[in-house]
């Protein structure tokens, strides 16, 4: 049942493995979180706070510590923000423009295909703009997704100015009365200053056409990425004011724990997670199941050890 599978129950299983809340317990917790790419600094802060809480409340029993762990993790994740920030920021009476940014190969184009499908299922008219004019086969790739989902793709030829494609995309979307325009861009590493300036220009062009646009700037992060994701989040935010994260490739064994630190430090929420290469493999982010995922291996181990 749902209740049995809930996060708290799983955490129960986990802590049941340890009779005492001792050094060994905290060591394993530290390793689990570090191996999930949460980042040493965040993990050490968390463990320190936990140890203090445990002392303060005089907790000896492992089952009592669950509550504290969940509290802390959720606190780190949400900070002072409202949960609504995880929703897509759509303009209900007119065109919404969503800009996709990120380093090379993280899943931008694929996520656009999946999100187009999701929005279309909700009854919206969606269009795509092929703003990656650089990478070999990038335009064709987006066109395949357009065909798959059944939405129109606005494109120019390879090597043309990305800002011009996006500009045309907006004009086309306006004249067709589309609800949402999803804009693809070429992957770029955040330390390439020229390419980051190019991206800032793309964003300016969008804002010039529609003052409140882009309604969302989604940074796609590959869950396999380690600590560099923090630098990606910082630099892409400086260039394009990122409003949300898509955490892709969570169907692998990587956990993407760095988004906890990103949320904590930069207050950028995760809005979606990518769980595969199919058109339906995109889900709204759920902090509880994400946090559970961080511990999944540990819990599996402890439950199988019980059997």
């Amino acid at each position, binding site marked *: 049942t749902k209740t049995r599978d809930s996060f708290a129950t799983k955490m129960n299983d986990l802590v049941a493995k340890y009779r005492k809340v001792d050094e060994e317990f905290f060591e394993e917790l530290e390793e689990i979180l570090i191996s999930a*790419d949460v980042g040493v*600094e965040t993990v050490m802060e968390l463990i320190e706070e936990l140890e203090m809480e445990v002392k303060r409340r005089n907790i000896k029993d492992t089952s009592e510590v669950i509550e504290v762990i969940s509290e802390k993790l959720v606190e780190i994740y949400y900070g002072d923000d409202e949960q609504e920030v995880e929703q897509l920021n759509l303009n209900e009476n007119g065109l919404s423009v969503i800009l996709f940014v990120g*380093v090379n190969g993280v899943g931008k184009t694929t996520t656009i295909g999946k999100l187009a499908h999701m929005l279309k299922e909700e009854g919206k008219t969606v269009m795509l703009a092929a703003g990656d004019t*650089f*990478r070999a*086969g990038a335009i064709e*790739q987006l066109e395949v997704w357009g065909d798959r989902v059944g939405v129109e793709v606005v494109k120019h030829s390879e090597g043309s100015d990305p800002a011009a494609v996006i500009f045309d995309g907006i004009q086309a979307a306006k004249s067709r009365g589309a609800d949402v325009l999803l804009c693809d861009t070429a992957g770029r590493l955040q330390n390439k200053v020229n390419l980051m300036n190019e991206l800032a220009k793309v964003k300016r062009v969008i804002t010039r056409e529609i003052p409140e646009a882009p309604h969302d700037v989604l940074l796609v992060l590959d869950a396999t990425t*380690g600590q560099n994701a923090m630098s990606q989040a910082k630099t892409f935010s400086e260039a394009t004011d990122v409003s949300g994260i898509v955490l892709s490739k969570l169907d692998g064994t*990587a956990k993407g724990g760095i988004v906890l630190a990103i949320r904590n430090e930069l207050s950028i929420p995760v809005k979606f997670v990518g769980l595969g290469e199919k058109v339906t493999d995109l889900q709204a982010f759920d902090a509880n199941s994400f946090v559970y995922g961080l511990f999944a291996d540990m819990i599996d181990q402890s439950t199988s050890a019980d059997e």
Partner: protein
Amino acid sequence: MAFEGLADRLQKTIQKIKGKGKVSEADVKEMTREVRLALLEADVNFKVVKDFVKRVKERAVGQEVMESLTPGQQVIKVVKDELSDLMGGEQSKIAVANKPPTVIMMVGLQGAGKTTTTGKLANLLRKKHNRNPMLVAADIYRPAAINQLQTLGKQLDMPVFSLGTEANPVDIANQAIEKAKEEHHDYVIIDTAGRLHVDENLMGELQEIKESVNPDEIFLVVDAMTGQDAVNVAESFNEQLDVSGVVLTKLDGDTRGGAAISIKAVTGKPIKFAGMGEKLDELEAFHPERMASRILGMGDVLSLIEKA
């Protein structure tokens, strides 16, 4: 939080023990703690770090460090030496088959850089080794993957073998090699679809291709930004395919690249090439020494050792 290199991290401890005639075990412990943190922040896998720090500690409490006048620098030197040992020497040779064509297979996770590296390797083989490679489009899954490789082929003016997306990758690979023999290509580079190391079906497909074409090289392509999961990926690909080498891509970024250590530690396979950009001439021989300095915090480490 700016990344602190190992040198910065050790500076404090070094200052503290400067005046002392001798270092205590507690001092060494403090220093190895900083080593651990620096490596973890650079994305070296925590298990690899654990073993590594243990080795460093053993050497650091030895005479060479404890009795040195500059113990802090000595610890850095030990770390650097151990890391260099672990990373091995430079190995950017590509196999040559007794009977051409030499067959190279590119494998790895989604988006790692296989297709781009296929083009880069072909370019390198022609430019540096005067070879005449053929590219093979065996990724039938990713949208426009064939198109991508064909575009690269056009840029390089090199043939790309394809049977479209309806054919089976094993057949594609086999027929490509026949064609390469007919047309006297001395190298065949097979671009395969990205896949998860835990995807049994798709990993099985790679094993089938391998058994069928018996490649001379299997290159595992890994993104240099990979975090703790690099060990799972590398171990798993290597167990299932016995790869012959690794290509680390996207090293033109600002990642520390600790995955390099993890991959080397768990597979023992050499990292042969480094991807340094998106363009087809941006592939370099991999330099283990430089990588070790990069992971530890670049040149400042070397200058500290020089002072030792």
